[in-house]
């Protein structure tokens, strides 16, 4: 058996401590402002709750207890999972529609002029209107939420995709033509990398809009999902539960942003960092 001397242990400890210190030095300035904001928000809320002592402004303990309650009972996972499922289906439908409209608008002047009023209308109509209309038209079904989400986010997604496609360097399109790149090669090495920043921005915007639309649909006409849970809490005037649901869903959205969108984006744009080394 190998026995490490104290000097060896100190050396190993120095070796592992150095990268840790470097990571902290990089992460701390990035995370500190956000953490500071959250602490000030909690402190501000705490002062407000103590000052007014009203059931309309529950204190931090009551909100914390409500969070523990919905998470421990499994209700949060069930309702948030249901809502996220609807969002994903709505996003997929919106993406297909936006791809067709965005591609046509970027490639054809007539198509661009043709779709322009529809996109303008779609961008200005509030999500609330789509939610109401879809509940009236399609009743209480999965279809209602998926179509309402798609109607609410497809215009923003289509505009982003069209802008991305229009921004593809025409000189690279010429190069791909001269070297007779096949359709899939053009898609892989030209179109997708070029539109990626626009696509990511569009998906982020679409995701944030989708969640607002689906919650409205769930409030108006469904008996599952975060919107339904929020509505139930609202009916019983349980402000702590409303805040708890909002907080937990916001944490899930943040986890998707940092754990999915940013990871995918970092992976797909790693060439930029390598190019700058």
């Amino acid at each position, binding site marked *: 058996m190998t026995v490490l001397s104290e000097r060896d242990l100190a050396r190993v400890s120095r070796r592992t401590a150095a990268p840790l210190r470097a990571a902290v030095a990089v992460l701390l300035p990035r995370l500190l402002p956000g953490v500071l904001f959250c602490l000030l928000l909690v402190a501000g809320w705490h002062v407000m709750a103590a000052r007014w002592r009203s059931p309309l402004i529950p204190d931090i303990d009551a909100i914390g207890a409500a969070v523990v309650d919905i998470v421990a009972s499994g209700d949060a996972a069930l309702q948030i999972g249901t809502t996220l499922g609807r969002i994903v289906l709505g996003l997929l439908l919106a993406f297909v529609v936006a791809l067709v409209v965005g591609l046509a608008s970027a490639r054809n002047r007539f198509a661009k002029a043709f779709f322009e009023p529809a996109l303008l209308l779609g961008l200005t109509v509030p999500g609330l209107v789509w939610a109401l209309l879809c509940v009236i038209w399609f009743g209480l079904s999965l279809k209602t939420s998926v179509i309402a989400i798609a109607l609410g986010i497809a215009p923003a997604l289509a505009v982003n995709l069209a802008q991305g496609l229009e921004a593809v360097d025409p000189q690279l399109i010429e190069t791909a033509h*001269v*070297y007779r*790149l*096949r359709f899939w*090669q053009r898609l892989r090495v030209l179109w997708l990398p070029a539109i990626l920043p626009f696509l990511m921005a569009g998906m982020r915007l679409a995701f944030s809009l989708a969640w607002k639309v689906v919650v409205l649909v769930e409030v108006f006409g469904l008996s599952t999902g975060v919107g339904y849970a929020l509505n139930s809490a609202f009916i019983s005037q349980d402000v702590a539960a409303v805040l708890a649901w909002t907080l937990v869903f916001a944490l899930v959205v943040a986890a998707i942003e940092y754990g999915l969108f940013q990871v995918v984006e970092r992976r797909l744009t790693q*060439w930029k960092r*390598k*190019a700058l080394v």
Partner: protein
Amino acid sequence: MSTSLRFDNVDKTFVRPGGEAEPVLRDFSLAVAPGELVAIVGPSGIGKSTLLHLAAGLETPDSGSVAVEGARPQPRVGMVFQQARLFDWLNVADNIAVAVDAASADIKRARQMLSAVGLARHAHSYPLSLSGGQRQRVALARAFAIQPDIVLLDEPFSALDELTARRLRLLLQDLWTEHRPSGLLVTHNTLEAAFLADRVVVLAGKPAHIARVIDVRRSRPRQAEDAQFFDLHREILATLEHGASWG
């Protein structure tokens, strides 16, 4: 004479944004023999690059024909532009490999050409981390890696400093001597035209016509300091000045 590239009675007119028609080529004919490199020189805007774009299939003639012929039913065209025009998100090896793959050429050629242009150790580098000269080397490697029937060169060294351009002209000469494709070189540099080409075609007028064809009777490898190239350079310049005085 068998040919690799042929312009037969080509007419090309562009319509300016104001709606004004601008004839660039009228009844233009030119033939490039297999293995021959023809340089096109002439004033700016005369239609030199239009000839390359027609040969590359990026433009179509209004009338007449442009034919590219090679050993294969679908001749392979390599092209080097003023800017390297690489895909910044692909590394150097992949930039070449994608063109080789599209041409269904031997994929081993990508690595061989990288070695030939002196960039083997940069295979996994990204274009933005390379100098302008290195990027243009990659563009040359891409053009030759597809085993082209014809190579089109659109002022390939004009954006580089003279020392780098000089090195790349020698590299192009080596590649040409080894692979012997046919080619068109558009350049404003008359000394470069004389040094690299087998024939220099001087364009003049609007629409453009061939003012003069100058044969460069020098075998390769050539020496850049060869006095004959300076004589040819003066001869081409004199023809250009004469053409300019016609209006």
